[in-house]
């Protein structure tokens, strides 16, 4: 299953990151997963939240540049080589990963990796066929 992710353009200026997070807090939106990619002058803040539509509206209303897109959340074994096996499966099938980040799983012995692939639909199918669970949106948002 594909999961909706929010991406925000954050200029490298004091308080910009806090301002974005404050909008979410004020709107009672909970963050399930987070990653911040940075360059010299700006960052891209990526989040998975419990209500993507509400979050997008609230951020946009506050003047923050925000877009939504799809990612996959792969459930993998929390042990050495766990991430490698999943990535090998994707690369063997010609899927490129654009970026990825990990988040906490509440199930003991499991880890979750959020992956943005060049073809998320196809990646989702390959992972399913390869015996991986991908987190269902409804379930993820409750993490």
């Amino acid at each position, binding site marked *: 299953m594909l999961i909706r*992710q929010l*991406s925000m*353009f954050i*200029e490298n200026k004091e308080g910009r990151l806090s301002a974005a997070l404050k909008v979410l807090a004020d709107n009672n939106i909970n963050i399930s997963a987070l990653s911040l*990619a940075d*360059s010299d*002058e*700006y960052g*891209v803040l*990526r989040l998975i939240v419990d209500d993507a539509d509400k979050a997008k509206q609230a951020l946009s209303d506050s*003047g*923050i*540049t*925000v*877009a939504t*897109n799809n990612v996959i959340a792969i459930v993998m074994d929390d042990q050495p080589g766990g991430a490698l096996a999943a990535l090998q499966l994707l690369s063997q099938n010609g899927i490129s990963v654009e970026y990825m980040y990990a988040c906490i799983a509440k199930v003991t012995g499991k880890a979750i990796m959020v992956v*943005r692939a060049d073809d998320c639909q196809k990646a989702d199918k390959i992972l399913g066929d390869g015996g991986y669970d991908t987190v269902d949106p409804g379930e993820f948002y409750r993490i």
Partner: protein
Amino acid sequence: MAYLHEKIETMPREELKKLQSERLVAQVKRCYERVECFRNRMNELGLTPDDIHGIQDISKLPFSYKNDLRDYYPYGLFAEPMENVVRVHASSGTTGKRIVVGYTENDLQMWSECMARMLTAIGVGKDDIAQVSFGYGLFTGGFGAHGGAEMVGATVIPMSSGNTALQIQTMIDFGATVLFCTPSYAMYLAEEVERLGVKDQLKLRVGVFGAEPWSEDLRQEIAEGLGLKAYDIYGLSEVLGPGVSCECEYQAGMHVWEDNFIVEIIDPDTGEVLPEGSTGELVFTSLTKEAFPVIRYRTRDICSLITEPCKCGRTHVRMRKPTGRSDDMLIIRGVNVFPSQIEEVLLNIKGDDITPNYQIVVDRVNNTDTFDVNVEMSEAFFTDDVKSIKKLENTIVEKLRSTLGISPKVHLVNPKSIVRSEGKAKRVIDNRKGKI
């Protein structure tokens, strides 16, 4: 006192004014006959050359403007046929289109002489080795300094700008005693000399710096850093190039060579000539220029004149350093930049990736101008992709560089984030005040 032409440089003011009057009458007649733009303006005011009897009538004459050079691009304002024009120079205009100026053989001679008078005054002569680190090319700096230095018999190193390591090596190896460049580049050279620890290998004793605003503090720093005496020079290509006015050995304002130019100070809003000593816009009339003469050219530089006699014995009026501009032109690293040029480039960026909202931020850090342009991205542009942001920034930088001749740093910012006041965005933030 050393003079190049003592008789002219120390001419009593009454005589000088008489000379100006004769030359003005002749120049007005010549321009009226040969330059369509000027003739039309005279006709609009119901004037003919017969109405101009001397400098007392100058305020009757119409002004000319930088835009005229664009409207009559490239040669429409020349008063000589191209067969008599031996050189052109060009600089940036208000809308990205270059402005072109021309010189006859006599004009080049006059230009060199203006520079040479200064060099003689400050003791530069045939025993000197002059490194010209102004850019050579369409910019007037390099060739202007070159002509003057040759005229006084100095050995000229036509170095041009850039490649700082080679500049310093050349100064050392060739034994340069005189340096010409922009003040900010001189400061940069001074810092590099300090870093390399080679100050004691330099033979520099005189520096001639201009083409951008600079302060007395910077003058001191350059003087100490390079071990020379630093002189100020003023000019603009529309009037001549560097050498329209120059400091003498007393460094008490820049002498305008009044046998070649009439200088006025006017109110930039009303166009009224202001009383002696007032601060206002500098206006020049070129009396002896043949190929591209200007009548009452509005420089947009804000300045005042010193009419008291100078200790050097020269009778020609002195101008103080210009304190600002009456238009929105910025001088960044010696290059003229108009906000409208930037606007035009941004409007021509294809697609809907950016909005036409931008902000120019200029500052001076370590004596070098910084130049940043913030551009709002459109709502639709941002997806999730870091690479495309960088790519768009690079595209904008490249387009601005090719239009302006210098590279800004471009920053994409959030849509609607550039502060607007009364519905209009503040386009330019110049933080250099007090630092130059």
